[in-house]
């Protein structure tokens, strides 16, 4: 056992010993920043920008699934909530607000008024708040909903937790879809335009500028905004992982009974995981809402939750860098790889996109057979997987004995 573990560890040490961590990170960051100049402003950059948003979501879900060990199959709910927040605060969805003159907070000129033929200006109706304010509003709102949706699941484990979170992922988009006459049946305001969705959405502008940050011809700034958001997400993730709360998450994941007996408040610890995980879902949701220029219920399907979860698992649950790699790999394959493949196969009369899920599933299958712990697993996870292999899973049966009897209470 020790020999196998030692070889695993020395493999990692050999890589990290070669280049110092900060240098590696600096080179990677520099490459990420100049990346748009290398690829131009085409569909590859478009796919990369979307990928960055998925990286944020994967990192958010990683807090729930990887750190705290809570299975979540309804993560799309927070994408939906975040996207609808920018839909409400950055579009003409509420035309009657402020007597039809609209509310404009640091919005771009294009979102504020349109010039009249006679020379005057006409206010644009609806709420128009700067993107960089809305992302934080959305984080607060989704964090709150993370707590509200997390609270009923606290007594549940494993399969049951998966089913309930799956249900939430289905409920939330349906609620938005049916909010054409008041939210939750209260009032008569149209919140979503039903299946049509909200479009167009305000484009990003810097708070001190009245011009749009990017255009379809030049997507680079949008990429950089997404990159900045990813860096913020990584920063928060790392700080939390190495904190008192991060330790509590891992303790809860490993053994709830022991964690509770060490004075860890299970409810609070799990709700923090849900809240922070959800906040990043909303954070990325706002970006995707404005970037795609539409917020539409069709975007929020169950498959999306699975997609993000697959990124976390393929990359390596619990490892920030692994999750990023997983997200980039799966997202680029989905957004760029398959369409490219389709271009090749189309002349042959064969539509690859029709079987994209099949290709995807096959890839996941191979991955799980060859490397179940993910591309870059966290040290802890790797040990968990290989421990069973090495020790012949001798005592896995004994782990849950008392936890089944444990009367979880609030």
């Amino acid at each position, binding site marked *: 056992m020790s020999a196998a573990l030692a070889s695993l560890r020395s493999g990692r040490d050999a890589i990290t010993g070669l280049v110092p961590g900060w240098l590696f990170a600096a080179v990677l960051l520099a490459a990420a920043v100049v990346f748009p100049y290398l690829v131009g402003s085409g569909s590859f950059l478009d796919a990369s920008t979307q990928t960055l948003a998925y990286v944020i979501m994967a990192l958010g879900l990683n807090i729930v699934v990887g750190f705290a060990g809570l299975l979540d199959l309804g993560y799309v709910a927070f994408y939906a909530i975040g996207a609808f927040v920018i839909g409400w605060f950055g579009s003409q969805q509420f035309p009657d607000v402020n007597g039809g003159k609209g509310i404009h907070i640091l919005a771009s000129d294009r979102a504020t008024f349109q010039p009249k033929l006679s020379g005057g200006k006409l206010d644009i109706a609806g709420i128009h708040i700067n993107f960089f304010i809305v992302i934080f509003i959305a984080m607060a709102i989704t964090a709150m909903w993370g707590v509200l949706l997390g609270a009923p699941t606290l007594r549940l484990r494993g399969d049951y937790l998966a089913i309930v979170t799956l249900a939430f992922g289905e409920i939330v988009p349906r609620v938005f879809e049916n909010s054409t006459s008041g939210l939750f049946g209260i009032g008569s305001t149209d919140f979503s335009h039903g299946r049509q969705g909200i479009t167009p959405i305000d484009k990003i502008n810097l708070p001190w500028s009245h011009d749009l940050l990017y255009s379809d011809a030049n997507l680079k700034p949008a990429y950089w905004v997404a990159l900045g958001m990813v860096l913020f997400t990584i920063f928060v993730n790392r700080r939390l992982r190495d904190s008192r709360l*991060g330790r509590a998450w891992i303790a809860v994941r490993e053994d709830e009974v022991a964690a509770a007996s060490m004075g860890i408040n299970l409810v609070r610890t799990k709700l923090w995981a849900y809240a922070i995980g959800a906040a990043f879902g909303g954070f990325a949701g706002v970006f995707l809402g404005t970037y795609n220029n539409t917020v539409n219920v069709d975007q929020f399907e169950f498959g999306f939750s699975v997609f993000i979860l697959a990124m976390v698992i393929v990359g390596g649950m619990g490892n920030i860098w692994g999750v990023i790699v997983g997200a980039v790999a799966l997202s680029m394959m989905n957004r760029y790889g398959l369409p490219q493949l389709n271009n090749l196969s189309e002349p042959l009369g064969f539509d690859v996109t029709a079987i994209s899920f099949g290709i995807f599933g096959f890839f996941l299958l191979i991955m799980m057979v060859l490397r179940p712990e993910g591309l870059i697993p966290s040290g802890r996870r790797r*040990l968990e997987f290989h421990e069973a292999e090495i020790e012949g899973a001798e005592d896995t049966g004994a782990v849950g004995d008392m936890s089944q009897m444990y009367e979880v209470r609030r």
Partner: protein
Amino acid sequence: MSDQQQSGGTAAIASSPPVGETLMDVTGVSKVFGGLVAVNDVNFVVPHKAIVSLIGPNGAGKTTFFNCLTGLYRPTTGRVNFDGSDITAKRPDLVTQAGIARTFQNIKLFRTMTATENVQVGMHPRLRSRVTGMILRTPFVRKEEKAARERAREILKFVGLKRMDELAMNLPYGDQRRLEIARALASDPKLLLLDEPTAGMNPQESEELRTLMERLRTEQDISILLIEHDMKVVMNVSDHITVLDHGEKIAEGTPQQVRQNPRVIEAYLGSQA
């Protein structure tokens, strides 16, 4: 911990309550699972700075009783008073915060964390960092984390665990038991519940553990409630022994009294008839 050690005898005596005063008072605790009465109307007292033991044959309800005290089970009836407050059926984390720490019969370490990290988790309720502070890593959080790490190493040194950066799962059995105690001590308990700490230990390790318990009592003013099968340890270390059989208290007293009690002999060896 070091404060108490350094402050010397007089200060410690002046501040600590007199030996013999009640720390935990358990009255009429029962636990029923369906039709099975696992613990039946047990009264129990733990004085300050005492080492008391709970013994009994397998299945006597000792661990169930422990779980009732620490909040893992809600007692069916009865009250648990600890250090002047009622902790009956409180949540496990609140019980720990009140000053009761425990170890587990089947070791429940956080296996993929290092020994030091395990102890730091034990410190959780004593740390005050908040989430925003953790993200911004304020000077307060930085200082607290550093102090926690140092304190964890101090505790590990106290229990005699040397491989502090080793993952818990890689530690030898005796060290895992030691680490469980260290982790429990990290919450600054007034009462330490040890559930069969010498299980699987060799005689030398058992003896080391016995010394450790004595030191905890004299140096740290911690009371210990011990479940143990090793009679040599129990008889040597305990001030007071309570015997459970079939969930009922059948005897209690000093080691000498319990050793000679006919009901205890019967429970352990079976009746002659």
